[in-house]
């Protein structure tokens, strides 16, 4: 079976996110001062072949832990969709 994983990787909440901070202040310049706390991460989409959803989930988990996210600075979560 083929699955698609939609992975969100975000900087840890405790860490300063300079990109998010710069964008927050830029939005204020656009008179959108109601917007606060912008945080910027990345979205990774990938396809995976696996016998079932649980196996696919384990593999995606491994990919996140080993390469896609650095847990010292980022957190990740993902959704698996049957492709």
């Amino acid at each position, binding site marked *: 079976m083929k699955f698609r994983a939609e992975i969100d990787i975000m900087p840890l909440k405790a860490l300063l996110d300079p990109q998010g901070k710069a964008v927050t202040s830029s939005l204020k310049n656009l008179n959108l001062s109601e917007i606060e706390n912008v945080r910027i991460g990345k979205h990774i989409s990938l396809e995976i072949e696996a016998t079932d959803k649980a196996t696919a989930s384990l593999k995606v988990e491994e990919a996140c832990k080993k390469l896609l996210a*650095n847990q010292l600075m980022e957190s990740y979560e993902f959704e698996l969709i049957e492709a």
Partner: protein
Amino acid sequence: MKFGVITFPGSNCDADMIYVLESLFNQKVERLWHKDTDLKGVDFVILPGGFSYGDYLRSGAIANYSPIMTEVVKHAEKGGYVMGICNGFQILCESKLLPGTLLHNNNQKFICKNIHLKADNNASIVNAHIDTKQALKIPIAHGEGRYFASEETIAELNANNQIIFRYCDENGDITEESNPNGSLENIAGVCNAGKNVFGMMPHPERAADAELGNVDGALIFESILGLIKA
């Protein structure tokens, strides 16, 4: 003593490092390629600066899975010397050979300028022969150099003399203003618990040749060579 300098796709300080070691310090240097699976008998491996794999995903993340890294990890685990400068430091943090990580600079800018740093102690070969009161002028050139680690890790690094260099002002005072990128405790470089794996963001190889008008970086190479010869 044989050095090995690894070139990853996107490394750009490899030639400078080789020049300093060969031409200024008369050392034997093996040119290693990231796909090599053999360190060719080198004693001291250097991961140079640059933008390996275009900094895709995260700085150093993809280079960490280059074939040669398996050998670098084995070398380090046997007590062999490994040093990463700038992007090399980022790779060593990704590989977990060094604790902590390097975040985007707190001002969100790529910073390329001379800064000052000083040896925090004389506990490892990279700072053993450097006066801890002396401020060394050495350039940095990075966008992701803000050293970060958990509170516990920082406490351990302090307790074990694993902080090799800290950013300071020209008088050697460690101040908030002299911290160029927001690194915790002004940390510019660290080593592992075994004191055989080192990483630093500043570029000593860019400040070693008198022709370039600054030779403070040469002290770090002299420290390494001095102690090994002794």
